[in-house]
């Protein structure tokens, strides 16, 4: 009791309403409430703990519901949890679950279902590729369970009663709550998984707790979900059916959009300006939480020349990002001079010197630095850039090659198949490598942790001051101070050449309402959408 009082948990009542959707004034609902969205490829799994894809996550957010959802701006709003409390030391989270939440078979959703889902994600027997996500959440014993040293039932997630879930963390994790809309943390019903084994995700077998239930899944063709009458907020869900349609070619997808078979699709590269002009109400560009970069190999296996910070700075200065963004991509992407995506919630962009310069000044400075190091167009620095097969990567690489050539850098372009490219990066078998990182959750640390000495960090950048800043950020009242300082270290050390921050360029039929257009994670919920008469 004493301990309980000492922790003196404080309640954080989630301010946003949980109600699904409100029809705007003047909108007349269509009779057919079906939303048909584009999928580039087959959905690999509908198992929350085994999914690894963004598209798979989009499907899972419709058929399952976690403790938290995201709203149209990316803010966390109640899901199955109505509210939660955090202990003073930031190590214990207690979630209150809504008693009216039900599975599609009518059974109540309980705290034990979350515990089972989380244990399942960490359990080596499940062999989830996203087991690291539970580790990243710093749940007690997660790493030990993944390593097989401790049984899954020792995970720091406990069902206090049917409607109370307690989670214990190994260290304060300010972004913990933001991770709870990720499908890896969704509950699953133990009895169904045990009854059907690996086939539990088949339509008909799959029991879920989201606003929709899976009704069919033709691998590589289409996937359909229909409104779940058992969903706790079903009365406020207007959409009746969601259909994901696989079209493996973006240009064919555009044809099918124009033929009225799709309500939403990604615009093929370079076509946004034309489509924006032709269809101003339908073509949109929204920031997306990914950053595109050329990684520099800083490891012992990397080139000696690239260990010189002036050479790295010259390469970063000499790359005219405006050409790449305005003339190659043409989709509302932003040139980048830092790592963290600009629209990440709570992140304040630091003043990076390079960003404030004109391109003429940058180019002149790049030339000077290279000359100082002894490289000129007559005696160029020979470098190789690895990139995986893609027309866009190729175009950007050619631009880099042309921009660096007059400065005294001869860039050899080394195109390779995706798995080969990845394998080489992971083995530090590269000089420069195309790379991109997308956020796991809507907070800057998801980007910045990448360059920790212990992070994924394929270029093996190692900076004690940088690591210390990120450690400090965890308990900081204003972690943005540490984040911007960390960005300044990256800007000075340049283990990467930032190129651009992503945007999603989409065509959306004007009769589709309730699409999340300000959510940098681009997470969407069919329960928040509706179709107007057209």
């Amino acid at each position, binding site marked *: 009791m004493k301990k309980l009082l000492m922790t003196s948990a404080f309640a954080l009542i989630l301010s946003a309403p949980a109600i699904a959707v409100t029809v705007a004034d003047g909108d007349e609902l269509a009779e057919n409430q079906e939303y048909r969205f584009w999928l580039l*490829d*087959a959905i*690999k*799994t*509908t*198992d929350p703990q*085994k999914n*690894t894809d963004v598209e798979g996550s989009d499907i899972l957010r419709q058929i399952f519901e976690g403790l938290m959802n995201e709203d149209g701006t990316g803010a966390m709003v109640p899901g199955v949890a109505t509210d939660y409390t955090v202990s003073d030391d930031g190590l214990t989270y207690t979630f209150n679950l809504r008693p009216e939440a039900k599975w599609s078979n009518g059974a109540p959703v309980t705290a034990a279902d979350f515990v089972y889902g989380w244990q399942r994600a960490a359990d*080596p*027997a499940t*062999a*989830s*590729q996203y*087991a*690291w996500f539970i*580790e990243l959440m710093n749940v007690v014993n997660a*790493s030990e369970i*993944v*390593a*097989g040293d401790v049984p899954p039932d020792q995970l720091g997630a406990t069902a206090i009663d049917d409607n109370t879930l307690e989670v214990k963390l190994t260290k304060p994790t300010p972004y913990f709550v933001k991770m709870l809309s990720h499908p890896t943390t969704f509950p699953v019903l133990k009895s169904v998984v045990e009854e059907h084994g*690996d*086939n*539990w*995700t*088949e339509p008909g077998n799959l029991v879920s707790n989201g606003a929709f239930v899976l009704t069919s899944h*033709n*691998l*590589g*063709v*289409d996937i359909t979900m229909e409104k779940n009458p058992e969903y706790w907020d079903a009365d406020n869900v207007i959409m009746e059916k969601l259909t994901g*349609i*696989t*079209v*493996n*070619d973006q*240009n*064919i997808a555009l*044809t*099918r959009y*124009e*033929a009225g*078979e799709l309500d939403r699709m990604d615009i093929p590269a370079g076509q946004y300006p034309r489509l924006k002009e032709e269809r101003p109400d339908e073509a949109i560009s929204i920031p997306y939480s990914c950053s595109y970069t050329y990684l520099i190999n800083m490891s012992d296996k990397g080139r000696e020349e690239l260990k010189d910070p002036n050479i790295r700075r010259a390469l970063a200065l000499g790359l005219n990002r405006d050409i790449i963004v305005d003339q190659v991509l043409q989709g509302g992407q932003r040139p980048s001079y830092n790592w963290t995506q600009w629209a990440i919630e709570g992140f304040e962009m630091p003043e990076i010197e390079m960003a404030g310069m004109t391109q003429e000044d940058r180019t002149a400075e790049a030339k000077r630095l290279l000359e100082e190091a002894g490289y000129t167009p007559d005696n160029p620095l020979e470098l190789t850039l690895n990139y995986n097969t893609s027309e866009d990567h190729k175009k950007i690489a050619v631009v880099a090659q042309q921009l660096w050539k007059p400065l005294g850098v001869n860039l050899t372009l080394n195109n390779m*198949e*995706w*798995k*080969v490219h*990845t*394998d*080489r990066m*992971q083995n530090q078998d590269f000089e420069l490598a195309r*790379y*991109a*990182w997308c956020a796991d959750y809507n907070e800057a640390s998801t980007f910045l942790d990448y360059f920790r000495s212990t992070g*994924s960090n*394929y270029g093996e950048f190692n900076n004690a001051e940088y690591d210390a800043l990120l450690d400090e950020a965890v308990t900081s009242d204003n972690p943005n101070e540490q984040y911007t300082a960390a960005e300044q270290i990256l800007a000075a050390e340049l283990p990467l050449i930032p190129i651009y921050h992503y945007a999603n360029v989409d065509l959306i039929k004007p009769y589709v309402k309730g699409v999340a257009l300000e959510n940098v994670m681009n997470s969407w919920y069919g329960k928040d959408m509706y179709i107007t008469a057209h």
Partner: protein
Amino acid sequence: MFGFILRRLAVAIPTLLLLIVFSFMLMHAAPGGPFTQEREVPAQVLANLQEKYGLDDPLWKQIVDYVWGIVRHFDFGPSFVYPDRTVNEIIAAGFPVTLTYGLLSFILAVVVGVSLGAAAAIRQNTWLDYLAVGISIGAQVLPNFVMAPILVLIFTLSLGWLPGGGWNFNDPLYWIMPVIALGTSYMASIARITRSSMLEVLSSNHIRTARAKGLPEGRVIRKHALKPALLPVISYLGPAFVSMITGSVVIDMYFSTGGIGKSFVDSALNRDYAVMMGVTILVGALTILFSLIVDILYAWIDPKIRY
């Protein structure tokens, strides 16, 4: 003939085994594995995955276990990339689709191709010949990756008659464009082969003799010319049939049919070893089977051929 068939079937088993061993070794020699991702999977998680799928065993043991699984239970193993599906399920879902549009394309290609080629040869240097040659050249220069988007533009976007893609066994409207796009270039090749073979046969001595005996022209063509003229066509049809019914990645991609052709390419790119092996064995077995059928057809058409 019966002995020949038995001998061929006996040879097929070691051939398939060799195919399995070589494919297995080649796949594992390629850089990267099924769990190689842009975001590196932590070492412990990777170890758990490899243990679950038996990838931590020596290669020889993996091959032996794999073959034993097929022999005992006809089990081609689990997919590494589609974790809730087995290879058997993936093939069972995709192959019927490919088989349907492949068979229909085959029928289209043979019926139209042979008719066009034969008519062109019989009416050599007439407008019919020029038309047939023109059609087959036109079809030949429009490979399926060109034909597919053209069909979609015409029949989906402009006319709105056909769905732009997808697959539905119960609705033939979904079949039409894949069948035309896949069958057309084969049809053109069959027409060309039939025409030149027919011309050669029509100028041979036994046809001259048949005509000299006063046989009606129709009977000369049906009884004496068509059968031998079809021998080179049949040689072409064996491998063509296999490549049609084992799928075309272009057709699967453009029409999102969910066919096995795209699974084959995807499995190679994803290093989904089990799916790739499953489809390789399927294609290998069908190739062996249809080359045997071609040989039998040869013997039936030309009794002089002995094995």
